[in-house]
């Protein structure tokens, strides 16, 4: 029976065993797979629960000129030089924010190892941005994030201990100003994961609790977050094709009765990446990264705020990986 099937079906005669192996997997795919609740995939970290939406809807918009040069000395170690000339917004007591022209040069060093990652950036005014990620064991990771300044009492630091289990993740955070937090996220089905977080601010004696849920398939991701600080955030990302994805986001702040909703697109094409978004605050933004050559990228950023009549355009180049 096997040999007659093989002669009839395929011109170059494969051995009957080969054809028998080729057919059943396709049938298996179509039938419904039984869910193995003891072998669920590991969920994404709690702080990255909205990462697809953040990548599409919140590109790093800037105003002015930006030039980044990254020079690799070897596989793991690289230095970066970055120049920025433009305006930054400074909150002013009188009229909201005012634009102050600034220019700075930033020197950075990166060391990237599978087990240890060190990233440091120092600005001309002495501010240091430091990020450390160290794998203490296979499942336990230590992350340190710090912004150190020369002015006293303006520095910030945060220590995170992450534990990755089979189908859950737990994190404990300690920050300056006596900030303590913990969060936990667990996969409950192959597509759905639920998580929660608590935090405690020592100096202001404030504490809060929040819950999050994330449902994702190959084509879409939907997340919902609610916190006792009165913030409800929902977002939905749909991958329309290999190159295009659309994202939308809704945020409600109960304390300030503030509602914001935005809709954006993300086109990842061969030579460029174009992201755009439209906001309920009357803000339209677009961000283009065009690959001119191997390692040379040209960046254009535009943000138009119709309500505040604020127009920001920026251009730049990135050289190096």
């Amino acid at each position: 029976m096997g040999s007659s099937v093989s002669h009839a079906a395929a011109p170059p005669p494969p051995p009957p065993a080969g054809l028998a192996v080729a057919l059943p997997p396709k049938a298996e795919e179509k039938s419904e797979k039984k869910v193995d609740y003891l072998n669920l995939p590991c969920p994404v970290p709690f702080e990255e629960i909205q990462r697809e939406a953040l990548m599409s809807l919140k590109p790093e918009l800037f105003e002015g000129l930006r030039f980044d040069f990254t020079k690799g000395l070897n596989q793991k170690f690289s230095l970066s030089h970055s120049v920025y000339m433009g305006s930054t917004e400074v909150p002013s007591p009188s009229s909201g924010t005012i634009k102050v022209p600034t220019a700075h040069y930033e020197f950075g060093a990166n060391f990237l190892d599978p087990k240890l990652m060190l990233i440091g950036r120092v600005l001309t005014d002495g501010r240091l941005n430091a990020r450390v990620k160290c794998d203490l064991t296979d499942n336990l990771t230590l992350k340190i994030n710090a912004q150190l300044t020369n002015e006293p009492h303006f520095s910030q630091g945060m220590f995170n201990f992450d534990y990755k289990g089979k189908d859950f993740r737990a994190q404990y955070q300690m920050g300056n100003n006596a900030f303590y937090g913990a969060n936990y996220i667990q996969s409950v089905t192959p597509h759905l994961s639920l998580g929660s977080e608590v935090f405690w601010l020592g100096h202001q004696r404030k504490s809060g609790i929040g819950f999050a849920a994330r449902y994702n398939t190959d084509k879409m991701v939907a997340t919902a977050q609610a916190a006792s600080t009165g913030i409800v955030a929902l977002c939905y990302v749909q991958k329309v094709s290999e190159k295009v994805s659309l994202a939308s986001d809704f945020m409600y702040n109960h304390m300030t009765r503030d509602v914001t909703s935005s809709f954006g697109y993300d086109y990842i094409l061969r030579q460029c990446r174009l992201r755009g978004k439209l906001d309920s605050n009357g803000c339209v933004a677009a961000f283009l990264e065009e690959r001119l050559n191997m390692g040379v990228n040209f960046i254009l950023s535009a943000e138009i705020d119709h309500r505040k009549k604020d127009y920001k355009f920026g251009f730049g180049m990135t050289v190096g990986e």
Partner: protein
Amino acid sequence: MASRVSSKGKGKAGRGPDDGSTARCVKDWSTWAMKKAKVVAHYGFIPLIIVIGMNSEPKPHLSQLVSPV
């Protein structure tokens, strides 16, 4: 009023060394240690990355650190 202030001051000075002095000492020393650690991290973090990077394999040359090519 002056006598009240002076008595309050004396009372506080009298109470200090007896009441929770170890806790206060630990807190003072940990604040001092955090301040020193912050200064060390501020000046030493980038040189630490450069030292670790220059000692990783394959060892880059010192001139590569400075030249733009």
